[in-house]
């Protein structure tokens, strides 16, 4: 288990960037945390780490955004709007989850049953007693280890 503490959106992006630099084909990250906690900020840094320079927007509306200009293809999911995990099948998720690129799945625990073995779980949390910009980023290899603070 890895715990990273950040104190600004910039630091959260830098944490993501470090993971992006080390990402390997087939890696999947399940990204959880409340609204506005910085899941997209983390992903923007992650994309930079892969060498992607185009703006990475929130995929809330489109569910999936694909970026192919980096070292590896990045498949950026946001499954918040899905009514049911089975709706991912309509998107053809297997092609991405079991492909040669890297997947980042925001609100991924909503589709936990569909996440392949080897998925890494990233949880971003606020701690208001430590200030509005403080974030605790927890990275584990199994969902059940990820019990927050």
């Amino acid at each position, binding site marked *: 288990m890895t715990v990273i503490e950040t104190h600004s959106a910039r630091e959260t992006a830098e944490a993501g960037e470090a993971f992006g630099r080390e990402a390997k084909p087939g890696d999947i990250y399940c990204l959880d945390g409340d609204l506005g906690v910085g899941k997209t900020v983390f992903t923007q840094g992650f994309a930079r780490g892969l060498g992607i320079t185009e703006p990475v927007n929130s995929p*809330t*509306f489109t569910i999936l955004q694909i970026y192919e200009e980096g070292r590896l293809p990045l498949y950026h999911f946001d499954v918040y709007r899905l009514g049911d995990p089975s709706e991912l099948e309509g*998107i*053809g998720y297997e092609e991405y989850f079991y492909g040669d690129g890297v997947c980042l799945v925001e609100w991924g625990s909503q589709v936990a049953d569909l996440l392949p073995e080897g998925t890494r779980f990233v949880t971003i949390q606020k701690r208001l007693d430590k200030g509005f910009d403080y974030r605790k980023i927890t990275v584990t290899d199994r969902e059940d280890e990820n019990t927050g603070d």
Partner: protein
Amino acid sequence: MKDIRILAIESSCDETAAAVVANGREALSNIINSQIDVHTLYGGVVPEIASRAHIQNINPVIRAALDGAHMTLDDIDAVAVTYGPGLVGSLLVGVAEAKALAWATGRPLIGVHHIEGHIAANYLAYKDLKPPFAALVVSGGHTHLVMVQDYDRFEIIGRTRDDAAGEAFDKVARAVGLGYPGGPKIDKEAKNGNPHAIEFPIAHIDGAPYDFSFSGIKSAVLNYLNEAKMKGETVNRADLVASFQQAIVTTLVSHSMQLVRERNLDKLVIAGGVSANSALRAAMKEACTAEGVAFYCPPLILCTDNAAMIGSAAYYEYCKGNFAGWDLNAVPNLKLGQRA
């Protein structure tokens, strides 16, 4: 001259839509799946995200569009379809359907960019509108400030770096307990609030003065809520959402007017679902009037995702003979101005 009638299909996101458009300027029919009771009419299903729903809706919606225009496939001169940007599975349903219809009828196939379609919605609403003009496209999935040089020439001047404007509305509505869809609910609630009660930060991007960032405003709203909660204070929700809306509207208006001034333009159009927002319409109209700029804003039915706008944009491709091959594919991250 003979009328050119285009059957247009749109399935880039949640809506399955079909329309018949004459000469790019007149919608003879404009059917959106959530708008008609497809279930009763033809045995369809309620809208959902999956492409499965598009598959079930698409034929009834196309049939309703042809019926509405009092036409059959024989009366159609071309078949147009949105091929990006959007959700790949959703786009593919429309693209495959359009290809099949074009092939079966022997008519040309035209691929259309979704955002170019939103801009073209204004050609349906305003018969005399001609480029060049500035266009602000704001919806749940897109925020683009575009210089429209000609019917088929676009230059992206500004875009969002994080959340789309409509998405910021949805997320803030969720945070304050107003629910979905956030845009109309905030618009309504804000009418009871003071838009100057709270000053929310307006983001500026270094080196990209026309780009937008809305995630900062969203975070500021969440921090405001958290701070009130910690202090045990009650939040005036109407004031909060009115102030939030004011911050978004101010950014959209100031960037748009900056472009109009810089390029010495006399026309500004808005398009996309968020252009239905009453505060945005009012502020934009006021700013345009003050500077002697003509302001165009399509009716609600043409602001939301629809196929009539695709049929309008397709007409100008038709006139140029810009037809797609049978290898036309869905392009989820299609760039504005890119051609198949």
